[in-house]
């Protein structure tokens, strides 16, 4: 675009609608992502997938493929890796950790806007707070989608490499069914991690403290939910962190898939409504 064209652009200084505000927020937040920490975060996501894939292949034993393509087993047996699900099994198994990582990141990032005081600069520039958040989440989810594609590809490449090392037959990996399954798994991971991202963002908006938000997110999805799950196995059907993780994994034999998907969506909508209400109504004193 030439300078003249730039100049000719209508530069309205007053918003004309919520969608315009969302668009502005999207562009603004996207501009902020051009920094090393973004590369580090995306790299961490890819590294997690690679690590998961390497461990999946390296630690697989020779047991029977009891649940081909299933996700109940933490480390599936070697024959299961030769099924159509084997290509991105490592990627899928990493999704729980990806979700938790995203939960903590989102809880920290937005709360930091409050602790740094940058939130007031933002709201003085864009008083339509809900629109601003929509744009911000749009950028975050766009980045997540792209980062997950990258992690997906790297994980698949690693799986091919590891299959050669472990002597896994990859004949079923490139069938139509395998590719459809891969696409479905990608969408499940994206959906599950999106739920984690919404929960983390909501937590930070409600708590407004970086340390407290991260601690609560970590304590709840880390020790607390798993302690409850150990005492009550059906907790996997109801507790939000476990439900989101279940969506990412594409369901399991205990909770199935549709139940967690429905409940997870309800959880996500509920926390989003609470967060948006807080965002729109609470004073900014940071």
């Amino acid at each position, binding site marked *: 675009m030439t300078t003249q064209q730039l100049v000719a652009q209508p530069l*309205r200084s007053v918003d004309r609608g919520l969608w315009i505000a969302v668009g502005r927020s999207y562009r603004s937040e996207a501009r902020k992502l051009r920094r090393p920490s973004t590369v580090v975060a995306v790299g961490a996501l890819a590294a997690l997938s690679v690590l998961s894939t390497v461990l999946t292949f390296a630690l697989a034993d020779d047991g029977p493929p009891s649940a081909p393509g299933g996700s109940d087993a933490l480390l599936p047996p070697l024959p299961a890796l030769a099924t159509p699900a084997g290509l991105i099994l490592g990627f899928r198994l990493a999704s729980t950790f990806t979700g938790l990582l995203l939960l903590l990141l989102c809880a920290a990032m937005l709360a930091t806007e409050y602790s740094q005081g940058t939130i007031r600069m933002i709201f003085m*520039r864009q008083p339509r707070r809900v629109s601003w958040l929509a744009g911000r989440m749009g950028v975050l989810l766009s980045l997540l989608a792209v980062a997950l594609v990258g992690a997906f590809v790297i994980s698949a490449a690693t799986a091919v490499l590891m299959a050669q090392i472990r002597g896994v037959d990859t004949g079923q990996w490139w069938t139509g069914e395998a590719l459809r399954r891969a696409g479905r798994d990608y969408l499940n991971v994206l959906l599950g991690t999106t739920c984690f991202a919404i929960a983390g963002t909501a937590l930070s908006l409600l708590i407004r403290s970086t340390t407290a938000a991260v601690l609560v997110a970590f304590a709840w999805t880390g020790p607390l939910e798993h302690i409850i799950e150990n005492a009550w196995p059906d907790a996997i059907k109801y507790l939000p962190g476990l439900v989101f993780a279940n969506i990412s994994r594409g369901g399991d034999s205990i909770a199935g898939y549709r139940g967690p998907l429905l409940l997870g969506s309800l959880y996500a909508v509920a926390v989003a409504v609470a967060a948006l209400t807080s965002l729109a109504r609470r004073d900014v004193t940071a």
Partner: protein
Amino acid sequence: MIAGVSYGAERRAEAVAGPTTRGGARRSLIGMNSSTQERPGRRQPAFPPGPGSARAADPAVDLAADRAASRATQAADRAADRPAEGADPTAIDVRGLSKRYGRRTVVRDLDLRIPVGAVAGFIGPNGAGKTTTLRMLLGLVRPTTGQGTVLGRPLAEPAGYLPRVGALIESPALYPRLSARRNLESLALLAGQYHPFWIDEVLDEVGLRDRADEEVRSYSLGMKQRLAIAAALLGDPDLLVLDEPTNGLDPMGIRLMRELIRDLAVRDGQPRTVVVSSHLLAEVEQICDWIIVVDRGELAYQGPPEGLLAADAARVTLRPEHVDDVGMLADLAAGLGLTVERAGDLVTAVLPAVTGPGAAETLGRPTRPPAPGGEDDDPQHLLRALLADLNRAAHAHGITLVEIAPNRVTLEERYTGLVARGTGRLMGDAA
């Protein structure tokens, strides 16, 4: 009464830029680009660039025309967003503004009226409610009660006026891991005011263009403060709200900031209102032509500084050439309606409070029919006239004065007395 008063625009213009700037060539924020420096009337940036400024490396392409076109587009847009001509000439007009947190009232029933084009000093002790008030005006804090307008738009709808407002509230809040340029770009994009020229302009304005691509975490506090002010200048706002803008600045930085604030108010010949919250009363006294004093959440005074300073009695010291004339001099002063004190060879005359309409009558001066806002009601003018009367009377009686020294109270003294008294509103409230 503030309606119709042209607050200090001429005075500021003369003090800062000289008469040629009034209604003359636009005094752009740019001022730094080689191509634009050739324009007559362009101002230099308030903060000088450091060594190695990127100005010298600017491309040879003359972007001045583009910038002018860009500005014209922006001006047209802004004009469309402004209320119609002839509307209320107040930049801020709010009434009954209150904020309660639980049972604690932070701001109580505040009525604020700041004329368009004023440089308003917002002063008060810590905890007086200054920042909360500014936050309410900026849509960050929801008022418990109160209504009014900011730049002609309802206070309850900040989205209507905030695009025309630039603000710095408390400490500079910036992303430490982003460069200065990236910080500004993200803010400009957020408001729909992004243009690469404008980023460079505001960076030039605060003298940070040569370090614009460094991460903000490497900046000193003063540089961060300047960058935050650059952020406030984005979009060429009609109303600038600066909360403690000199925090973290060294003496030279404070002086330059003062010049910048003065200049902002007169730039382009278009009315721009600046609200400055500060604890540096000397600074406020030098740059502001409108003062708002709040104490414990309540309005203590608002109006021109002269009204605040003249509301208390001022003292004038008179010293005759011959000690023998002290008695006659005292009688002459008393005859003019002044309270007189004698001490040695000095006569101290205490002037009555003079401010606002009718002040001339207060001083017992024969006046022409007063024009609202005219010099007959100007306390400074009245005081000068009274001093001339004293001098004339002494001369007429053969007394030669070797000293006639008005000991006016300073803003700091007046403010200290006002806040210490805690009595709330002044009699001389000009609003």
